[in-house]
């Protein structure tokens, strides 16, 4: 039996599309027996599923609270539709929020929680652009109809009974430029304008909002490690 023939049988078997009995009928017996051989499809299923479980624990908690077994069905359907094709395990989780959004049985809460989970991962793994002012991929703004941050923290840290509060939240997520820690905050309107200006845009200031308030927010974002040093000064010059 050639290696090519071996892999041609093992590929669909390991993806759960062919039974151990069928594979061994074609390849010949395993001296360990069919039960032990069949274990490999299960181990691969666990490994792949474990990536999604790990990434999206808050989604799993919320889904299971709605209907027992729901998350497992969604995860398995996702992995059938998007089988991992990249050597980085993280990539196997990338399309999950979009997949959930396409499912008629999934409500928007689960989609929001999944989006938040991937957003956190994104900012923690994005490169800072040293020497440049303004925002980069390590800082994101998201708006959710629920307090997904508090719920996710409660699930992941096991702090009490998690409940998804129906309070709309705009969140600014970023990675501290020196400490490399996740920063999540609710930005003020002035902070959002500071981000826009730092990105090279020139939004008109709403009535009642002065340039000095925007600069103050930019200094605060600098102090929190989200803006590189010097950004507040640049904003001051832009708004002068």
């Amino acid at each position, binding site marked *: *039996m*050639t*290696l090519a023939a*071996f*892999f041609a049988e*093992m*590929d669909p078997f*390991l*993806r759960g599309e062919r039974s151990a009995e069928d594979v*061994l009928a074609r*390849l*010949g*017996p*395993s*001296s*360990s*027996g069919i039960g*032990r*051989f069949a*274990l*490999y499809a299960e*181990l*691969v299923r666990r*490994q*792949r599923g474990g*990536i999604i479980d790990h990434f999206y624990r808050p989604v799993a908690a919320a889904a299971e609270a709605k209907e027992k077994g729901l998350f497992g069905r969604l995860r398995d359907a996702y992995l059938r539709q998007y*089988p*991992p*094709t*990249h*050597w*980085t*395990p993280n990539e*196997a989780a990338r399309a999950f929020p979009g997949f959930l959004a396409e499912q008629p049985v999934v409500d928007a809460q689960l989609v929001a929680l999944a989006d938040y989970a991937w957003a956190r991962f994104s*900012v*923690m*793994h*994005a*490169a*800072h652009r040293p020497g440049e002012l303004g925002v980069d991929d*390590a800082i994101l703004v998201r708006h959710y109809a629920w307090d997904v941050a508090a719920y996710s923290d409660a699930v992941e840290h096991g702090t009490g009974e998690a409940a998804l509060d129906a309070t709309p939240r705009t969140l600014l997520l970023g*990675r501290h430029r020196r400490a*490399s820690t996740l920063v999540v905050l609710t930005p003020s309107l002035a902070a959002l304008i500071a981000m826009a200006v730092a990105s090279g845009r020139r939004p008109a200031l709403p009535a009642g909002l002065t340039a000095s308030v925007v600069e103050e927010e930019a200094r605060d974002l600098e102090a929190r490690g989200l803006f590189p040093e010097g950004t507040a000064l640049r904003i001051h010059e832009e708004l002068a």
Partner: protein
Amino acid sequence: MTKLAGVGIGLRREIAEALLGTRRHLDWVEVVSENFAGLSGRPRDVLRRARDRWTVIPHGVALSVGTSAPEGYLDVVRALVDEVDAPFFSDHLCYASIGTHAFHDLLPLPFHAEAVAVAAANARSAARAVGRPLLLENVSYYASMPGSVLSEPAFLGAVLEAAGPEVGVLLDVNNLYVNAINHGRDPRADLEAFPVASVRQLHLAGHTREGDVLLDTHSSPIAPEVWELYRDVLRRTGPLPTLIEWDQNIPGVDAVLDEADRARSILEAA
């Protein structure tokens, strides 16, 4: 390039901050290549901090010498190995992908001549592409694959012989143990047959029982039988750099460092 000695532990995300802040003695760390190679952001920051303090060994899970390395993979591994100036890098004697399908598991090959030739050629090519020696780890396997005609030690020995001097062995003592038990063999007899002259590094890890199978889960303390086998290995090999692998259900960095201290005391007495 630094020479590796002593005892290391795996730098895993769950314990990274605690490990980087510890004052306890540790000789080196191992990183899972796929968790750092080609990545920016926090993984890169953690890697820099670790490199400033210890020798860092990249240990991969996606090389897939039984099939072929994923496209672009060796380039990012080379960059990682260069960045930490590792004396060598390691992966597994197995396959982890078929074509574009990534299984994210370490899957055993049939122990036969064609698999020897393919794995040896791919391992040698990987070592040359990365520019450092490659150590291949003996994987745990729960079932013999159809078509196997060689014993596990004979298969590994044949791969090493065909691969040449750029490829050595990372002997996982726990895998040696669970393979012997799962297949009804004596671990010491397997050790006798093992190509120990090519071993450059050791792994120690915990396993768990599921039904009639011992699974290599890295989720528990090292079993007493594996500690005993570690002593036997060192009697045959002499002192070798040893890594504690604890990847799941990690109770805290001190528990892992306690295991490292225990390994060091055995290693220093060897």
